[in-house]
């Protein structure tokens, strides 16, 4: 199937997000794709609050079955979460489990005032009552396919689709 141009989607997402953020808004990207995206959006929107990044490996709901991924990077939230407007950023929204894990982790840093969600692609098939407020595009992707953001050495974004291999199976993506 033809995948949309990730760079164009990113511009679209930045345009939508611009209306919703203020100087105190904290962008938090979910590693890895979401953190790249948050980095880009943070730069485009010239937000003064430093951006954060979450590695949700320690909060996944399939830890008992899947264990720890190699190379967990520490989460970094360089601002006070309490009372703040936070926009969680991820590349692809699917079952909603990753976003739930990210929200659980955020609450361990404090009590946010409001959390919103921005994603490049919403591929539907939610398993939890979670919705994104800012969406680049909605796209039907066959189940069993893994859709993710890739970034080349010059920082250019593309969407990549692959078959789910046992090694990168992400039942909670």
């Amino acid at each position: 199937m033809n995948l949309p141009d990730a760079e164009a989607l990113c511009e679209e997402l930045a345009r939508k997000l611009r209306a919703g953020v203020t100087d105190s808004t904290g962008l938090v990207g979910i590693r890895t794709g979401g953190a790249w995206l948050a980095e880009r959006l943070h730069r485009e929107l010239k937000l003064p609050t430093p951006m954060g990044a979450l590695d949700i490996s320690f909060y996944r709901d399939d830890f008992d079955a899947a264990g720890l991924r190699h190379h967990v990077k520490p989460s970094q939230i360089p601002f006070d979460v309490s009372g703040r407007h936070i926009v969680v950023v991820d590349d692809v929204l699917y079952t909603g489990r990753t976003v739930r894990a990210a929200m659980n982790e955020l609450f361990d840093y404090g009590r946010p005032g409001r959390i919103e969600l921005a994603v490049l692609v919403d591929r539907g098939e939610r398993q939890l009552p979670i919705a994104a407020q800012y969406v680049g595009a909605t796209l039907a992707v066959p189940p069993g396919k893994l859709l993710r953001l890739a970034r080349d050495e010059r920082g250019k974004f593309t969407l990549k689709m692959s078959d789910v291999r046992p090694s990168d199976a992400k039942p909670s993506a």
Partner: protein
Amino acid sequence: MRNPQLNGEGKLQHLLTIEGLPREIVTHILDTAASFIGVTGREVKKLPLLRGKSVFNLFFEASTRTRTTFEIAAKRLSADVVNLNIAVSSHTKGETLLDTVDNLSAMHADMFVVRHSSSGAAHLIANHVAPHVHVINAGDGRHAHPTQGLLDIYTIRHYKKDFSRLSVAIVGDVLHSRVARSLIHALATLGTPDVRVIGPRTLLPTGVEQLGVSVHHDMREGLAGCDVVMMLRLQNERMKGPLLPSAQEFFKSYGLTPQKLALAKPDAIVMHPGPMNRGVEIDSAVADGPHSVILPQVTFGIAVRMAVMSILAGK
């Protein structure tokens, strides 16, 4: 021969010794520990990885630091922790080790942290428990103390980054020290080129050089130019018969003083697994001095034990 610590897929099932542990697993533990360090700065210092799991601290031998840091590590991971003071339990009434373990398993233990004065005790338990139960060796006789070895190399990596050019000196009562054995294996696994043991003949195990270390009986020679000095405690409680003239004599020859430390590199770090005997193996001026990383070792120990527990608990 199958490594009893690994399951059929080569993943860590129990942690019994660093000897024979693949380098990737050792590195994975250290990297995971590094990602736990930041958690202590948050409002909620807990992670949900071991939520609903029960960890039993089974200590047949006295311990403060190790037991407490295991307890804190398990609690930071949201586990329920049960501490057993075996000295006043059924053990003294004649119950065997495996009967004790069976009874605790019937109470739905998911993980045992075991310290015992007999080498191989944790191994015995690991071979006995059901497949979903994990065992961590927290010190067995003179044999091994793997989480101490891991926190020691974590500390070294934190301060020195690269193992491929390091000189590490291990000083004192190597004979009775499971800490020294675990550290020597860990350093070898990470490819440390120069590991030295320093001590009187009576406190060095015969054939210790077969572990790939050089043997020194003189501090001046052994400490020259080293990057890391690991001091060991004189384990009087394990000494059978006179191995030393006196603690004072020992301090004179092998106690780490600022003068002896000056032989090492100017940026050398000094480590000690604790408990310290000031004035026996280490001078207070060194223990509290700028080279000492003895207290950071304790803090890193929590993150390393969290890493081991969470890697074991995840399938």
